[in-house]
């Protein structure tokens, strides 16, 4: 049986090359600037200084974080009732609803966003609102399905018990259902916040060129200007922000469980 161990070795080489090495190269690029004929590059913090000393870049970063937070909150507010109502349906209708919500997601995200462009073309919404609609449209299904999964797993007799012990429906919801669905909300937040903060084609297709997010900044520096060092630094900054926010979201979950 131990001979089977060897089966993983080729994949370890592959993963080191195609998963680990690219991440290291991003870090390398972020902490260097292009050199001259004598030295190909030199180590420097220049990219980070440039980012944090420019109010335009800080503005773009702040806008992305705000957009991701608002999108996540709206997805919870719209998605929670939806998930709750689905969980209250009969078994068969539940499965049908889940299928109906999953089905559009199988269509390319880009194609669906392109469709919204047509719909929003004859509205006079400001660019920001259009981008929000696109974001919520693309990420709401993740939230609904995650919350629904945690609600469906819940033991229904707990509610009956709470009612028997004198809780009215509202109190039973606040004390039993809501706390038990927190893990679903947390995984929903992970699935919405992360792609929302790094998104770049939704703002580009729906907001026109005017609505710039961190993702667009990275795209511009890699595709248009070709300043890869600065682009790598921007994506490193974004990754660190995501890691920090994920850490706090997860911590919220663990604290809850620990109690």
């Amino acid at each position, binding site marked *: 049986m131990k001979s*089977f161990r060897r089966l993983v070795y080729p994949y370890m080489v592959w993963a080191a090359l195609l*998963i680990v090495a690219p991440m290291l190269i991003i870090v390398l690029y972020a902490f260097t600037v292009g050199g001259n004929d004598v030295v190909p590059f030199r180590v420097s913090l220049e990219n980070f200084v440039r980012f944090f000393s420019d109010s335009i870049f800080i503005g773009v970063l702040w806008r992305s974080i705000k957009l991701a937070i608002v999108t996540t909150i709206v997805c919870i507010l719209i998605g929670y009732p939806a998930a709750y109502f689905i969980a*209250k349906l009969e078994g068969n209708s539940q499965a049908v609803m889940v299928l109906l919500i999953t*089905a*559009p997601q199988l269509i*390319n995200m880009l194609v*669906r966003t392109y469709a919204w462009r047509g*719909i929003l073309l004859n509205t006079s919404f400001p660019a920001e609102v259009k981008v929000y609609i696109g974001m919520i449209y693309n990420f709401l299904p993740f939230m609904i399905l995650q919350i629904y999964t945690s609600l469906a797993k819940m033991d229904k007799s707990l509610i009956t018990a709470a009612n028997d012990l004198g809780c009215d429906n509202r109190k039973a919801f606040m004390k039993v259902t809501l706390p038990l669905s927190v893990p679903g909300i947390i995984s929903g937040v992970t699935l919405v916040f992360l792609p929302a903060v*790094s998104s770049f084609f939704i703002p580009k297709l729906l907001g026109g060129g005017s609505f710039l997010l961190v993702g667009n900044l990275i795209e511009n520096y890699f595709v248009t200007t070709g300043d890869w060092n600065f682009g790598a630094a921007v994506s490193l900054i974004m990754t660190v922000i995501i890691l920090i926010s994920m850490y706090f979201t997860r911590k919220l979950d663990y604290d809850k469980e620990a109690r």
Partner: protein
Amino acid sequence: MKKKFDYKKLYLALILFFFYAPIIYVIVFSFNDSRSLTNLTGFSIRWYEKMFRSRSMMESVYYSVLIAVIATAVSTVVGTIASIGLSKSRRVVREVVTQVNNLPMLNPDIVTAIGLMLFFSTLSIPTGFGTLLLAHIMFCIPYVMLSVTPKLRQLDDNLAEAALDLGCTPFQALWKVIIPQIKEGIISGALVAFTMSFDDFVISYFTTGPGINNISTYVYSTSKRINPSINALSTLIVIAITLILIVMNVIPMIKQRRKRNEEIM
């Protein structure tokens, strides 16, 4: 008793309307007679004709399918083999590989994408079909492993041991004993891999080269101009996915019915 107004169903109906509105819009406007994306002027199939005549559009469909098929096949085989090896490995190795696999699944796509782009450029590998395919295989394998690994954990080690004791070669033990028991995990892993690959835009956008577009990168590259034949293309995708969903949901039903009939007989 008067029936209470069912606001729950209304709410769910509104949610579904929100999810399906753009799809309905695309289908309706794909038959529009004019270029306009806002006014319906009459029925025509000219955008479908234009789509089938457009070489670049047809090529993008071809590449999307081809890449998804190859990436699914390769990542399913490699991912399954790697998972089996991993399940027999030491704990440290398991932890490390799992963490590394988490990287592309948890990192934003754009970070994975530029990492690969810089990697290919560092090794001076010219971008194109090959790099696009490598990138897709790379991000599909972790998903396959994620769905195969739980099945391996449920596996009874004694069965493979028994097969070896009874004279099976390790390969036979793998093929005849282990694989059949983790089949479900392999199939669902392959399905996830296929959808991930077929839907991908961000990683494809940064790792493909000149002249090679999948559907996503094609739509993105032409999105500056108004091009209603993209509506026609979208409609075809919607029809294809609907057909696949129907088949996937109907086949198990027929199988179940047949089984029941056999039991009765």
